[in-house]
């Protein structure tokens, strides 16, 4: 879609890009984006040259008007020449006006592409299981895109000034007196060399500043998210101290950049002022020997002071300041938008599984080859329509199992089959439609209630409102729906809903989906026991398979079958079975019953 995704590289994104690649990085992204719109880019350049014309004429016209007109006693001629200048200014102003739409046509779509590329890359990477940036990092991305947009337009508008002015000054000087040009050439070349060297230093300092800012954001975010914990731990001074050092580091980076930037000013001295003085010093002997006329000296100095000096300054500002910031920022963004390698979809004609029974065959999963497996050689069959509850101590791999069963993690060994077909071979679309995993952290987004509840229905489907309402009612979200103003109600700020309310929304969403297998991964943990019971009962009564990763052991008593994970092995059986067969399970139930006297006791 975007230029960046189109220019997809084949290298795996996980490994850091090679150093050489990195060096050309900043311009690769910008060049790819600029190449897409050559026409407006060319038009901007063309109009901006026209825009510059009156500025070139002004010196000449004013000088002539004064010398030949007003001073020579011909005020009419002076006024005519000034009128000519006004006309030239009008042409320039019109060129400015005409240039803007083209500048907008370069910069605005480029920003759009950049936003699109960053959003696509961020969401795609995160949904492929990589660590997602937090809110502060997202804000920073926005800021960096804006920097690129602003600086790019500034650089585009100013580059021609640099180009035209430098060319004019140098050409003028050469035409006027090759000898004067020779005197000037030495220091100018030294300045050019120094400038190129300086660019590296400036880029490094600019990058340091950017990184210091990013570090400040990255480290201040957990502290500001944990204000309550800091207060509760009495760690105010400790926290203040760490913020102080980060703030100081950022300020130091700012000052370091300023010191490096000060050297830019020295380039002006070497490139423009030293030649002036050199020319003045050389002028004496040269005029004495008759090789340079007074007029030539005046002309050469005029070119130096009104042509070259401003040009050098603009060059330093445009390239040495904006250009550097632009390049460094674009490079950081380029780091973000590294595309993913294409996902290997099954190459053969995709088969669609028959039926919706889930089977695992010697299913094993470990985070790394050396780590102890989280799931080990699990054989499990979940028949279509069955209600299975997974019970076990926290950290034992229940959530990992949920991810494996829904195809979000690939087994290290063994296989998960859906309707007889290995999950890897099942077309993604089909899998996503058939299996609904509801994680503990409820995802509710800003939008209407209808959008939120219909989220798992195929896009564009005219979802029957009755179905959504019935789903909300079934899981116990009816009162919440009423409070939110029905299906048309807007959820502007999902964070204003309580954790339990957000879970109700995601439960209703899963209920309303077409999924034939629903996996609730502690998806009811923020509901009270009564709410949890109601939601689970609703899903049990719904057509299809229900797998519950239990938060409370009371969920188990409601299941057809219980899978007990205790680290070493996995046992399945009915609730009554397990009470007699597994001491651990009996313990769990006993503990529960100890807490819940009366009618909430589970059968022992």
């Amino acid at each position: 879609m975007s230029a960046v995704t189109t220019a997809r590289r084949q290298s795996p994104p996980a490994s850091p890009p090679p150093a050489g690649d990195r060096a050309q990085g900043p311009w690769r992204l910008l060049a790819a984006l600029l190449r897409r719109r050559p026409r407006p880019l060319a038009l901007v350049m063309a109009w901006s040259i026209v825009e510059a014309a009156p500025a070139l004429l002004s010196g000449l016209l004013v000088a002539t008007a004064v010398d030949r007109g007003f001073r020579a006693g011909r005020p009419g001629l002076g006024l005519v020449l000034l009128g000519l200048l006004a006309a030239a200014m009008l042409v320039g102003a019109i060129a400015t006006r005409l240039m803007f739409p083209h500048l907008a046509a370069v910069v605005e779509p480029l920003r759009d592409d950049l936003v699109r590329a960053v959003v696509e890359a961020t969401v795609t990477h995160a949904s492929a299981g990589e660590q997602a940036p937090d809110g502060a990092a997202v804000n920073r991305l926005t800021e960096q895109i804006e920097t690129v947009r602003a600086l790019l337009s500034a650089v585009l508008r100013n580059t021609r000034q640099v180009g035209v002015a430098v060319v004019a000054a140098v050409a003028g000087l050469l035409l006027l007196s090759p000898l004067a040009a020779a005197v000037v050439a030495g220091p100018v070349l030294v300045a050019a060399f120094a400038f190129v060297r300086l660019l590296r230093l400036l880029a490094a300092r600019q990058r340091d500043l950017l990184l210091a800012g990013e570090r400040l954001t990255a480290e201040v975010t957990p502290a500001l998210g944990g204000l309550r914990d800091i207060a509760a731990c009495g760690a105010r001074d400790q926290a203040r101290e760490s913020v102080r050092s980060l703030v100081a580091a950022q300020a130091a980076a700012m000052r370091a950049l300023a010191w490096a930037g000060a050297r830019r000013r020295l380039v002006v001295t070497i490139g423009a002022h030293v030649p002036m003085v050199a020319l003045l010093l050389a002028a004496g002997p040269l005029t004495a020997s008759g090789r340079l006329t007074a007029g030539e000296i005046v002309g050469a100095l005029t070119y130096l002071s009104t042509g070259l000096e401003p040009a050098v300054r603009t060059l330093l500002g445009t390239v040495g300041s904006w250009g550097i910031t632009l390049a460094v920022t674009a490079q950081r963004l380029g780091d973000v938008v590294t595309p993913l390698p294409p996902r290997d979809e099954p190459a053969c004609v995709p088969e669609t599984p028959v039926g919706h029974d889930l089977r695992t065959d010697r299913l094993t999963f470990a985070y790394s080859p050396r780590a102890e497996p989280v799931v080990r050689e699990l054989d499990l069959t979940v028949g279509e329509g069955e209600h299975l509850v997974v019970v076990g101590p926290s950290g034992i791999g229940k959530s990992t199992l949920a991810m494996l069963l829904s195809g979000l993690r690939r087994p290290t060994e063994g296989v998960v089959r859906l309707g007889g077909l290995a999950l890897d071979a099942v077309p993604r679309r089909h899998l996503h439609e058939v299996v609904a995993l509801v994680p503990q952290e409820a995802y509710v987004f800003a939008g209407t209630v209808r959008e939120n509840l219909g989220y798992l229905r195929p896009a564009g489907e005219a979802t029957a409102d009755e179905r959504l309402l019935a789903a909300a009612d079934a899981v116990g979200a009816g009162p919440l729906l009423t409070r939110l103003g029905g299906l048309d109600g807007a959820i502007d700020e999902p964070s204003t809903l309580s954790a339990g309310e957000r879970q109700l929304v995601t439960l209703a969403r899963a209920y309303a989906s077409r999924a034939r297998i629903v996996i609730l991964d502690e998806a009811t943990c923020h509901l009270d026991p009564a709410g949890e019971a109601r939601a689970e009962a609703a899903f049990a009564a719904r057509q299809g398979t229900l797998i519950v990763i239990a938060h409370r052991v009371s969920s188990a008593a409601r299941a057809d079958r219980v899978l007990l994970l205790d680290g070493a092995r996995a046992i399945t059986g009915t609730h009554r079975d397990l009470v007699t067969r597994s001491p651990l399970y009996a313990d769990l139930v006993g503990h529960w019953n100890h807490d819940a006297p009366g009618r909430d006791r589970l059968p022992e």
Partner: protein
Amino acid sequence: MFAAADRKESETMPGPAPRSSEEQVSHGHGDRLIAALSRDSWMPLAATATGSIATTAVALALPAALAAAVNAVVTGRGALTATAYLALLLAGAALAEVATGITSTTATASAIGTLRLRVAGHLLSADVSGATRFSTGELVNRLVSNTATAGSAPVTLLGTLTGVAASAGAVVALFAVDPRAGLAFLAGTPVLVVVLRVFVSRVSGLYDEYQSAQGRLAARLTETLAGIRTVRAAGTASREIDRVLRPLADLSSTGHALWRAQSRTVWQIMLLMPLVEILVLAVAGLGVAEGRLTPGALVAVAGYAALGLTFVEQIDPLLGLAYGRSAAVRVLEVLALPVLPAGRRRLPDGPGALSFRGVTVTRGDARVLDDVDLEIPAGALTAVVGRSGAGKTTLAMLAGRLTEPDRGRVLLDGLSLSDLEPGCLRDAVAYAFERPALLGGDIASAIAYGTAGTTREAVRAAARAAEVDDVVSRLPLGYDTPSAGAPLSGGEIQRLGLARALLRRARLTILDDATSGLDTVTEAQVTRTLVEGMRGRTRLVVAHRPATAARADLVIWLEAGRVRGRGTHRELWRHRDYRDLFAPDAPDSRGEPHGGEPAGVASRQEASCPR
């Protein structure tokens, strides 16, 4: 240079405003903040001012010096002296400019740093319930971005002032040379000023819109990333990308509108400026022709007219100042959060008895706690139960002065918490939370957070008591594993938070739903630590589970901000409504509607589901 959209100090967008700001912060307050900042970094600012005045002076002297040097070289008299004078001036200019560049950055860096430390310091001593009304992203934005924009304002202001002063000086000089030329200048400028004003007002409105579109986009992206597991499971990444990008259309159209506004106005400015100059030159030229002015005066008029027009260049800094003001206001909204003033009194030894006397807490229109009187007995385990929104968490926050009541007092061993010296208070009260933030770097420092000089052995003992030692041992680097990104489940993080509280061995330990994520077995072990291992210390436990309530010495039952009942679990069990708090499927448990719960916090369940 006139382009408002060319600003590089573009700032992250304002997020959603805090839902209820305690105090209206106006632009006037923002101005005062900027003034205060200027006072604080007056030294580098004064140096910057001196530097820029010197730069301007040298710039004014240079043309004359260059002319003199050329004359001297051409005539061959005093060439060396004149050239040396020029070289000196050029060196002076370089020095002044370098110095100005460095001092202005120093001034800005110090203003930003001061402001950031002030914001951070304020947040760290603020009432926690007030500060957490801002989202973390919003706080980071204000601490990092808004401070940067506001902190640049003093230097920008200085630049504007010197720029305007130079322009004004040039106009005065113009009048001194030739009053007619001065009048011609003044006749031309009003049009220019009007055009500028129209431009600025048009562009600022658009720029606000632009920022708000940017903010909506960023907010959507953040939201999607927070729910990325659901997105993965549903395979809706591409749909999410479309959803996040929806505000892009607005952003784009506002961006184009900004350019249109510029294209409409900038050319007029580009035309008007030289026209004013030409008008002044024409008047002066006629003066020369009439013999009223010397040719030299004509050159001076041209120079002063150009210098006089440089006020137009102040547009960008002026816009920058406008952003600086808005940023200052946003910073001030944080600085206006109520702080908890530190008390002075030391806490004498005591058993750890906690009392609430007529405590009322209101949030917006809702009463979260309504005139609560409570005695939490010393050395006992007290459980607080109630439905969501009943005020349990607020009660827990009050008990260790993380927030302060709007009315009433909270006493520990007879002393009001607000009178206590903060160090004493923190030594006396420890907290564990449902979702603790692990701070301090690695796991060991996360457990020892806030207690400097803790030995590794003490850390491990606390971890063992919280049943989390095994978990940590299985981590890649054990206790040295960095907390961020460590593969820990919610229940495991909860236990680390619990270890952090246990380590402090405080007189009063408050557990706000700190065991909710634990499985039944671990929870039983942790409960044993709470009941037996901490015997004799006061424990206040907010819980949803009957387990904790059953083992507590005393249960406080909150409902809609009031104490509905107190007693042992067994005593309270006689109430049907109390049983409903825990009962999964009582057939007739539809209780009375619980009025008075604040909307938006309560998760009201109807417990009736006949099967």
